[in-house]
């Protein structure tokens, strides 16, 4: 009898308590869901890009060049809003973005978990009705950045222009060569390059790129990164290195 009573007490005050916590349980944000952010009016623009960041997140810091591009795209096109959401204080978040040289003006403080963000960094495209159109999680590979931009352009009704493309085929390289200065950069080691390589390519091994790129490549040229491999991390590293040195027209060759 005592045991049954204790059981009831445990159920009532322990198990039910944990159920109470479940009210706050994590609801992962999905495409098609609605999202709410304080003081953000979705109707103000055809689309809003919400960056879910954390000042202590390594991949957020490493993704800064892409966020900077988004800011530039926003300033040039004006067809979308850009909001950065941090769990940290506004001052701390603002300082973090300033240090990264990512001038996002709309910053909000919120629990990312409450918004349903699975992790950081997250890039969420929201339409003018507050409906989520795409979610990209983590540090994005070139292809994923392309996809995110395409999704954004789709929502804003804008067709992707070539400078927003991240990947390029060999056929497109030839077309680009007609009108522009193009360098196809092979980032493999010398031995692999010596064995076989595409005609007309320049070889700078990835570990030498930081020292040599600015000395040997023109910032006016479009640079097409190539490694005759499927190593997207390697290509991303090359792209990040080049972008940090001021190269803007960067593409990754579709192998």
């Amino acid at each position: 009898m005592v045991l049954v009573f204790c059981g009831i007490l445990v159920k009532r005050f322990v198990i039910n308590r944990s159920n109470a916590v479940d009210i706050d349980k994590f609801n992962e944000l999905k495409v098609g869901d609605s999202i709410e952010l304080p003081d953000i009016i979705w109707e103000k623009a055809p689309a809003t890009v919400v960056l879910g960041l954390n000042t202590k997140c390594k991949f957020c810091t490493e993704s800064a060049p892409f966020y900077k591009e988004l800011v530039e795209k926003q300033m040039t096109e004006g067809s979308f809003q850009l909001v950065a959401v941090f769990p940290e204080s506004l001052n701390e978040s603002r300082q973090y973005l300033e240090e990264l040289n990512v001038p996002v003006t709309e910053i909000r403080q919120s629990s990312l978990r409450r918004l349903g963000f699975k992790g950081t960094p997250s890039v969420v495209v929201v339409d003018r009705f507050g409906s989520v159109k795409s979610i990209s999680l983590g540090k994005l590979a070139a292809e994923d950045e392309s996809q995110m931009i395409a999704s954004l352009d789709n929502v804003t009704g804008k067709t992707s222009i070539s400078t927003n493309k991240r990947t390029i085929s060999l056929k497109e390289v030839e077309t680009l060569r007609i009108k522009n200065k193009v360098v196809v950069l092979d980032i493999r080691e010398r031995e692999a390059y010596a064995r076989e390589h595409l005609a007309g390519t320049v070889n700078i091994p990835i570990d030498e790129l930081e020292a040599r790129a600015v000395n040997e490549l023109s910032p006016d040229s479009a640079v097409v990164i190539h490694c005759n491999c499927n190593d997207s991390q390697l290509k991303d590293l090359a792209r990040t290195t080049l972008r940090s040195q001021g190269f803007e027209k960067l593409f990754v060759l579709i192998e």
Partner: protein
Amino acid sequence: MPLYPEKSIKRKAKGVAVAQIMINQEGDVSKVEILEAPDSMISTSVTEAVSQWKFRSSKIKDGPSVAVKGKLTFYFVIDDHGEGRVENPKQY
């Protein structure tokens, strides 16, 4: 810095030279391998120069000195007057 061999200047051999070096615990260059150079005389010049370099020894945090491997890049440039010079990479 490596010297620009006169013969290389006359032959108009110019461009990048990359050396892979091994630095021992004392900071001395223990091995030099030329990975790329405009010609063999430039390779020799880089090897001779770099072999004499002395580096501050590298340490693991709160630990002993360690040997390290790295790459050095030099640019052998010939100007409009035919003068040769050796440059370090410009920093971005």
